[in-house]
């Protein structure tokens, strides 16, 4: 079986600054992967290159058997790649319900599985219920707290019905029990066959979630393997955990 996501020698620079260098990662369908690294190590840049928000100069990305290079962000979302933004980017003039509607109308519908008009609204409400926001379905996102916005961001990424979901710091600022809720949610998604990549600073969450841990430092991948082994890796300790 071929890998679901295959990143091969990916490189990205901003002017003279090398943000990512020779990144190669392979993920199988159904994996739970943690991606960690200090601030500015290139985690979000990597996500942006995978999802087409930024263009990588070197290397290639294959997803679900097809090359993604040159494809736009919306084509990648339609292909089954979904992500949250580190700083939530809700559609401010649309209600929470309508925020959910967008991926259903545009990403899911493009795969041919068009929900009929009557089905969409209950589906949107279901998604909001999963993250506990169904009570505010008819409100605008401007009134939400930062934590609620993160949940909305996650729900919208789920609404695109992805094969691979990248959660970029979805738990920052959440309480202990909220983190547990989100982790349980991500694990449920994973149990349905969705590959989940978790980018997180909360080590407890990463360690309990991940089957596999990847560490980025200064735009390079320095470790990739079982979480227990990776955190004992001296290079990781020196560069990241021991700082």
């Amino acid at each position, binding site marked *: 079986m071929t890998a679901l996501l295959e990143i091969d020698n990916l490189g990205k620079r901003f002017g003279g600054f090398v943000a990512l260098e020779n990144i190669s990662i392979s993920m199988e369908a159904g994996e739970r992967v943690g991606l960690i690294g200090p601030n500015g190590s290139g985690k979000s840049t990597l996500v942006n290159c995978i*999802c*087409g*928000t930024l263009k990588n100069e070197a290397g290639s990305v294959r997803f679900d058997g097809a090359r993604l290079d040159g494809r*736009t*962000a*919306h*084509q990648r*979302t*339609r292909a089954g790649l*979904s*992500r949250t*933004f580190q700083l939530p*980017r*809700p*559609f*401010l*003039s*649309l*209600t929470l319900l*309508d925020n959910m*509607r*967008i*991926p259903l*109308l*545009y*990403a*899911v*519908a*493009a795969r041919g599985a068009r929900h009929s008009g009557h089905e969409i609204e209950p589906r949107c409400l279901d998604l909001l219920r999963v993250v506990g926001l169904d009570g505010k379905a*008819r*409100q*605008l996102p*401007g*009134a939400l707290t930062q934590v609620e916005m993160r949940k909305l961001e996650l729900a*919208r*990424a789920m*609404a*695109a019905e992805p094969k691979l979901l990248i959660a970029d710091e979805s738990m920052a600022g959440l309480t202990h029990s909220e983190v547990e809720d989100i982790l349980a949610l991500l694990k449920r998604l994973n149990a349905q066959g969705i590959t989940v990549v978790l980018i997180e600073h909360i080590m407890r969450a990463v360690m309990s979630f991940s089957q596999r841990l990847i560490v980025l430092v200064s735009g390079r991948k320095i470790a990739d393997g079982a979480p227990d082994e990776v955190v004992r890796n001296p290079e990781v300790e020196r560069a990241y955990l021991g700082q």
Partner: protein
Amino acid sequence: MRSDVFLLVWLVIGAALYAGAEALGNDYVFFAGYVVLQYIVLSTAWNILGGYCGYVNFGSAAFFALGAYSTVAIHQLHPMPIPVLVVFGGIVSGVVGLGMGYLTLRLRGAFFAIATLALAVVLETLIVNWDYVGGSRGAFIVRPETIAPFGSYIRYLFLIMLLLAVGSIAVARLIERSRLGYGFATIRDDEMAAEASGVPTLWLKLIATTISGALMGMAGAPFPYYIGYLQPSSAFGLDYAVNSIAMPLIGGTTSWIGPLIGAVVLGSLQQIATVTISSAVNLLIVGFLLVAFVIVAPNGIVGLVQKYVQHKRVGFVGRHHVKADMPAGIPGSTP
């Protein structure tokens, strides 16, 4: 309300308007009404790109003039019925809108705005140099005095513009309620998030520029017949450029009703005011109103009315009690 019912209601309103104007029995009403209707089409068209997608088109006059001059060009070749000319004008302006959009919309929004601003100047240069359509001297279009069964020709022109106005309102509302309308709103809010949700932003922006440009061209197509003598300076008039932006922004940009209100209010006031004050003063007032509204009332007249209604409702039930679960889904109530 369903879209076909909506269209039907507006056709009835249109018929009533026509009958009312007919009852007044004065051609001046048709001449003045034509201009107001023309502004309804222009401001609704502008709002499809500007209000729904958040992309500013400063070149309304250019798209309008393209429609008008495509009529002159065809007329020089062979006179044709006006509905055919309207279709031609729409195609020409729509294609130019598509081309401009393709070249500039992949970049930041400001570049599109700047390009449309420059487009008006350049198209005027081209027209002034093009003798076939009259060049800088202008072109005469002799319109028949009467046309059966409408009587005077201006009534026929009025009716065409009335149908265009009803049509453009119906198109705008249809877009608002459709998948396309949701897509446009995401472009206005956050294009990066829109792409990540599967919205093909460039494609949707091109659809918006094409529809918007085409409607403006359609509004311009009958204009040579209305004015009789078309000069570059009248087709590329500043009043079109400024009014088609001022009317939606003063009326309110989030739904079809805003541009309609803006066009009817400002258009009628201008028709009355040109009789009493000079057209330059007239335009100056529009300019000041535009600046005042964008600063003080970002959601236009519609926003002001909604604020007033909400305020009253809140005041009635008791302020702090209602605030927590105030419905937020009303168009235009965006913070």
